[in-house]
């Protein structure tokens, strides 16, 4: 499992695009929003948590079609499926690798982009915490979507259509934590719900993803 993880990480590092693309997209979204809604810092501060969450979610979505498709094309997915490791573990490791290459950079970049968007001072901590708890769920759900569409020629758009409705609860609770944090309100309830969604999808969805992958590899 560790070997698989380090292989995926090395691939992402050396092939490029893994770290960079999602981050660049996130940066561009955060820069474009003030152009669209105007530079008033009060308005920007109010929408900053939501915009940062949407940006992180879309950046995550952008990198999903590379998650399994590359391994599918060069046949290494078939090899992995016949390996002694259960497919569930392989899929989980894929999600973890995706989280480390996409989620973690987004979490680290979010406070910097928060400065650009005039996020209130109280919001930084909760923004980072909500992303830290929420992005694993995004990666795991995304892996499920990627597994569903892996065999398709042009699955990218379909992947977005399938995954976005599944992202709704995570987005609602995640953005709510960040918003309440920025407004100085109590964040416990949405925080617990967000953590619950992440934990439950991490525990259950790899089984669904592995089942889907088995069907696609048949």
């Amino acid at each position, binding site marked *: 499992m560790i070997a698989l993880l380090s292989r995926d990480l090395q691939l992402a590092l050396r092939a490029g695009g893994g770290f960079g693309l999602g981050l660049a997209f996130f940066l561009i979204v955060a820069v474009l929003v003030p152009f669209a809604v105007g530079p008033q810092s009060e308005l920007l501060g109010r929408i900053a948590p939501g915009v940062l969450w949407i940006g992180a979610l879309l950046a995550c979505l952008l990198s999903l079609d590379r998650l399994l498709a590359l391994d599918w094309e060069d046949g290494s997915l078939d090899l992995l499926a016949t390996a002694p490791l259960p497919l569930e573990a392989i899929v989980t490791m894929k999600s973890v690798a995706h989280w480390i290459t996409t989620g973690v950079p987004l979490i680290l970049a979010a406070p910097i982009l928060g400065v650009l968007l005039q996020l209130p001072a109280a919001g930084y901590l909760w923004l980072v915490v909500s992303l830290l708890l929420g992005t694993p769920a995004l990666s795991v759900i995304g892996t*499920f979507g990627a597994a*569903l*569409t892996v*065999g*398709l020629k042009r*699955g990218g758009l*379909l992947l977005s*259509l*399938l995954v*976005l*409705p*599944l992202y*709704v*609860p995570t987005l*609602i*609770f995640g953005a*709510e934590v960040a918003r*309440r944090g920025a407004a100085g309100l109590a964040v416990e*309830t*949405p925080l617990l*719900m967000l953590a619950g*969604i992440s934990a439950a999808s991490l525990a259950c*969805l790899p089984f*669904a993803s592995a*089942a*889907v992958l088995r*069907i*696609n590899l*048949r």
Partner: protein
Amino acid sequence: MSLWEYANPKKFLTTSERVLPVLWIAAAASIVVGLIWGFFFTPDDYRQGSTVKIIFIHVPAALMAINAWFMMLVASLIWIIRRHHVSALAAKAAAPVGVVMTLIALITGALWGQPMWGTWWAWDPRLTSFLVLFLFYLGYIALWEAIDDPDTAADLTSILCLVGSVFAVLSRYAVLFWNQGLHQGASLSLDKEENVADVFSNPLYVCMIGFALLFLALVLYRTGTEIRARRIKALIARERLES
């Protein structure tokens, strides 16, 4: 005599062909009776005026929109567990019906909301969760269309339906939470079922039965079409092999 007899496509087709004419007539009769009763023989509401009568389309459509997804969930489970092709095809056949019901509910709701709430759309929990349901339907149908191999498509869409159901329920409660966090919201979501008078509820029940029968008839009919379409495909493939 068990339910599983109808897993045999031939048995399913002969029985559904016998049942369908009755179903069509019953559905048409109860919808016509319910709508005429509702539209012309109920008084106007003292606050909503005649717009209250949209309830006779809106509520049954919303009811069937949710039940269609539930039916797809059950059919998907049967396909995964017992692998009856008819079940997978029934789930496939129900999805477009469900999406149309969802659209009807959304559109009639908007038409009613414009004069009553003064807006076509509000991010009220009910409205929002219906919109999310609509998106789930779209994804499900798109996945069916995208995959060529019918068995793979049936497997993948079934699992999507299962996972989607969990997330749809989750979204429902998340949306409830989110909206109460943002606005008061409750002023918009009148619980219609609770305080509707008998004058309105009786024709409403007739309409609900009518819509349910219509849904049943449409699903049986469309499942029959799917079975035949698959037979044609098999025949063409066989002919190509022989020639």
